[in-house]
């Protein structure tokens, strides 16, 4: 758990870093992540972390039972698109967002995206294999052309720009630094 909480706080700073990109003051795209290599998380660890993220974030739209809201927020429970053997579609959707759903590539690192998708693929009667951080990294690289975003010092939080997906050196903005 300790390791996970440190991952979480580090990821939070990445959001801030992305926000700072909009200011053009922190060059960070394209730098390699310097975190020490950690042991691969077990499936149980992924599920525990995934549940924590789900009940803190995803739940707002997709509801406690994973059924979403009819016609508005897609159901995750019993959704065959999410339980395919190859999880690429699911992982990509979480990373890039789709329609009303925000992208989560900014706030979450590969292990956390693996945790969320693994949890959903096994919750509410869903039954599919775990997703590994390496699988997420591969999809992320395919989307962004940039493997991982360099974390910055603690405490940075977004000034509105939570859009996330870094795209080859350009600011991800869409949201002004001073919000409406």
């Amino acid at each position, binding site marked *: 758990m300790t390791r996970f909480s440190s991952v979480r706080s580090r990821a939070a700073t990445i959001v801030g870093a992305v926000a700072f990109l909009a200011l053009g003051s922190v060059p960070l795209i394209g730098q390699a992540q310097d975190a020490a290599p950690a042991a691969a998380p077990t499936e149980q660890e992924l599920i525990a972390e995934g549940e924590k993220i789900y009940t803190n974030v995803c739940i707002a739209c997709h509801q406690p039972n994973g059924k979403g809201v009819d016609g*508005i927020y897609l159901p995750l429970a019993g959704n065959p698109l999410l339980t395919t053997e190859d999880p690429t579609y699911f992982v990509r959707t979480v990373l890039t967002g789709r329609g009303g759903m*925000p992208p989560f590539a900014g706030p979450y690192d590969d292990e956390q995206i693996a945790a969320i998708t693994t949890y959903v693929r096994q919750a509410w009667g869903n039954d599919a294999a775990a997703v590994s951080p390496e699988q997420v990294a591969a999809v992320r690289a395919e989307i962004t052309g940039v493997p991982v975003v360099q974390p910055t010092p603690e405490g940075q939080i977004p000034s509105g720009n939570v859009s996330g997906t870094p795209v080859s050196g350009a600011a991800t903005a869409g949201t002004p630094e001073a919000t409406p």
Partner: protein
Amino acid sequence: MDRVEGAGAASARHPGIITRRRFLQMVGATAGSAAVMNVLTAWGQMPMGGQTEPPKLQGNGNGTKVIVIGAGPGGCPAAWELVKLGYDVTVIEARDRVGGHVFTVRGGAKTQAYGKDEQVCDWPEGVWWDAGPSRIPFYHRSFFHYAKEFNIPLIDHKNLNLNGWVYAENIDGPLNGKKMRLHELQADMAGYTSQYLATAIDQGALDQPLTAEDEELFKQYLTNWGILDEMSLTYGPSDHRGYTTVPDTQSAGEIADPYPFTDLLPFAAAALRSAGGYLAATSTFDWQTTLVKPKEGVGQLYEEGFKQALGDRIKLNCEATEIRQSEDGVRVVYLNKETGQTEEISGDYCVCNIPLSVLIKLKTDFSPEFREATRAVPYAMALRMGIGYKRRFWEEDDWIYGGQSFTNIPELGILDYPDDNYNAAAGAMLSMYNFGNNAARISSLPYEEQYALALEHVSKIHPQAKEEYISGFSVAWHLEPYSLGAWPSYNARTRAGAMPKLQEPDGRVYLVGEHLSNVNAWIEGAVQAAWMQVEKLHTRVMQG
């Protein structure tokens, strides 16, 4: 084309720079010398360019029928300009009010968010707060344009108040969990920065290629900016950091010593990093003075302006479900929420002010390419909460009249005080504003827990908050029907790929909204897009 290439060559040498001479050459080449004179005449009044009023269009729509879906920030101005051009306009709006994202909350205001209970505002008469856009920057000219056209009185949105609080927690040092006035923080940081720089100059330690004259001027500037002692170049107490006891008949007042620099640094750094940090209020183009709003809230422009002007052309409680089009017309199917019946309306064109996040849920027959573009842009999450208080303790106790306080609490963000009706009994304050995952998590809580969380945080800055609490009103825009998000999250790829496609009509359907502009999340973007689409539509109709 030669002329344009010439302009391109000039800007290639100086990217982003067009000199006055160059600009006049371009105007003269394309529009003639009279236009040059007009530009010269206007130059004094129009320093920043951009489109500042609706396009001046010739010809009459002669009753060409346009269905506008959505009486929001973009739909209303589009409808109104089309009416003035002679079109037969009908506006269908899903909500029971106009304005869409523009939402001034008063007693009686209601929301029914997805997955939540109904929320009803019970603030007393005269208390209001903007759940959506709340401040209009001076350069958002379209708002000033319509406020003038509709005679809507404007007041300052103060935004920056140096007597507001700054609060930081989870930082090192003795100022952790403390608050200080913004004037204290600003004076101290300017003072210390000046002191260190001026001393470095004085000791010849500033590693910069400056002449002796430059260094002297720089030192003078720093001495005045930081309020340094001219001889010692040290920073000390001055009234720039405010009084702890103001002058009166008995004393000349008391000014506290500056905070020790090493104590202050963690606080100042954390405060600057925080969401909507205070520096934004002094220096960003969007947040610097002057900002304005209508006297009764931003919604006043829509409720008293556009709604009155458009009259019974607006049909409320009509939720569009299908947009169909053929060679010669469009057909919009909608649910009449008053009767529960499905109805439809036909016209020649459709102007659609539905956020992309909602539009993709409708049944449409857009081209595959257009449909893909509507699906390409995800939306951001944001939660704003207003709390009504029985007593304006921030005015009576803290002497804060309007403006904001700033915190580094991610869940809380900023506090934004009422900018008018000073000395009134009650008032509502922006008491929570957060984004992304914070917004998601907090919005998943029952409303009573959300209000309690906000009060807990607000009490760190204003301990009176709990005592004076009336009720909260929380709007998580990602959970709001007909919004499904706070604003579009464009990235470089969707900005270059999807947005240009969305700006063009699909058959007879023209989108409007801030999602079609580079001014996302602001009313200005929606109006600019409306003007752009009205011009395109009208030009097409005039060409037959």
